[in-house]
């Protein structure tokens, strides 16, 4: 998610999406190596967690966009998310090559559906934080990257095992999530 030119913001709009040739495959690639490295690292951590967890055959990785709210009086500032994307994965162990081929074709169809659902949601253009003034840009944009300034975001993941059966577990998760904010 980039930001457009604005009279109050002196950052340049940089193209961050490239079509690069890699042998015979054309990929859509970010032009920011830093951001790409960061994302790859987070995804690798999630992958390793799924592989290493015993008995946990599913997990989810979450991309959360948030903005920082200024603290008032004695209360510290808090982060309020304005868009959260969660991808849930179930690990499937396949024994034969035939099963793998069948599963691969089904998975590609599922991926197509998921991509189009993401496209549909994104293209609704429902909410984007207002472009702040220069003084407040750190509350909306992540200025830690040298070549790219995305919206403030964080990535976290967890292994979800069997689905929670009790209401108490769910309530506990809600409380934990609200306290974390």
């Amino acid at each position: 998610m980039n930001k457009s030119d604005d009279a109050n913001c002196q950052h340049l709009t940089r193209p961050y999406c490239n079509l690069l040739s890699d042998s015979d495959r054309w990929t859509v690639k970010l032009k920011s190596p830093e951001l790409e490295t960061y994302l790859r690292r987070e995804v690798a951590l999630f992958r390793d967690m799924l592989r290493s967890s015993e008995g946990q055959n599913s997990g989810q990785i979450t991309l959360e966009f948030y903005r920082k709210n200024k603290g008032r009086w004695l209360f510290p500032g808090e982060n309020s998310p304005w868009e959260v994307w969660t991808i849930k994965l179930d690990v499937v162990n396949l024994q034969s090559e035939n099963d793998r081929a069948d599963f691969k074709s089904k998975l590609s169809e599922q991926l197509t559906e998921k991509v189009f659902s993401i496209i549909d949601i994104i293209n609704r253009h429902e909410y984007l934080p207002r472009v702040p003034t220069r003084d407040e840009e750190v509350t909306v944009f992540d200025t830690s990257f040298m070549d790219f300034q995305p919206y403030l975001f964080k990535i976290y993941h967890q292994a979800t095992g069997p689905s929670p059966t009790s209401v108490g577990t769910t309530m506990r998760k809600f409380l934990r999530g609200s306290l974390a904010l």
Partner: protein
Amino acid sequence: MAASVSTSEDSIENIERLFKTFTFRCLQVIVYSRIEANILRSNREFNEMFNVSIPDNPAIEDSLKKSLKDVKNFPPKGPICVEVALVTSEGDHMFLETWDLSFNRSSLDMSANRTMHIFTRMGVTIKSLLSATRVLPAYKLARNQGEKGGGYTLTHRVYMGKPQTHMLGEGFKTVRAGAVPTALGLMTATVSYRTKLLLSADMPASATAAIEVKENYFKEEADAGIPHRSPKISNPLPCSPPIRSPVARSESPYCFAVSPSSLEREDKVMRARAEAESSAWETSSKLEYSLEFLKEYFAISQNISLLQMDELPEPVFGAFSRQQPAKRLSAEPEVPFEGLMRKSFLMRPEQRVSGEQTQQGDMKKMTSKEEGEEKENIPREQVTKNVFEMRQANFEEEFVMIDKPPFAEEDDPADVKAFLSAMMRAPKLYDNCGEIGSENETFSLVGKTKSAQSATVSVGQYLSDVEELVNRLEEEMPVLDEFCNSVINMDSREEDEDGGGFLFS
């Protein structure tokens, strides 16, 4: 179309220019994702409009600009479509996708009335389009095209007008690949793509059977140095002739089978007319009655005008019908599925149909007021002859229309309801005893022998007959009991005497 503009940057001209660039960019993204990789790899110039860096190919850009030269205003009034097809080395075509860029002026989003906002949203849509073009099955085919790959090539065609999706086979899917809501309207990018990618031997035949494809369907202009085939069309051609569809099922002359609901409706109309003409019918079942009635009605009403005949469903001899199409003498070659093509028969001159009468044992008698005599087992050929002495139609213009078969899945389960109601309902006895002509056979419950000169039996008389019969049976009940007892006792006595011998000899 005028939206409130606040600064010079947001003038209508700037916004139109932005839409033009965006439209061109979308076409670039789509076309580039479907051409050979070698072509793109050779390009070194990149266009970074909308924050997306795409290599530019001058030849393809020129062809796209020529395709859009007829578009005067942006955003365009009509949809702009891109059709992607796979062409094998043998020349077989398989249409893979149809992309559609359309602008809806009625859907407004007043929050995006500035160039900045529109630009941002367009950028998001371009990136969405990039992703969408790469998750579809055609992308993988595009990567493997060429002589070194699968031996096929992917072609594209840009045209203005409604997207043609009927060539995408069964089960094609339509998804939205991007949307730009603005204060001027909503610009959407939609794609319809084929899901079944099996190229069979039947495909060329089925693809061209129903359409007329001109020889210059894909115009190939002389573009030097373009290894790909890029048909560039500025005047789009419809991929298929207009398909005629019946306005209503009952009006459709082409039915795969006659549905009960339409039969019932026609049945009521015919019954009213038949009663007016004092036609007499005997039926064994309601459905059979309707079919027979329709068939024989046409034989009777030779003087019915064409206008009236248009209201009636025509007898269609389907594949599973008991009736066989009548044999006819004709110099014209036989037409396949001629039983389904009513008008093709009508084209033929009046013919005296000859042939064997395939009479059925259960054909009912009918009367004709005009002829005034009893007809038995009307020859089927005569029926068909009467049917086909109708208006003529152009044979070349006819289609074999197959209506929805009865009980097929539909929102309105009228057929099922009608069938069930017809089957569950008991046949009305009163109809059989209704106003019947004196020449017909009649019967009564009193046990009298059939008389050809019985008076008409009314409902009241029928009920009184029943009552009389019941009373008589009650009166004769003791006699019946006595008889039964005698038979029983006689059996037992004879058994005792003979030691269990047979009663019947």
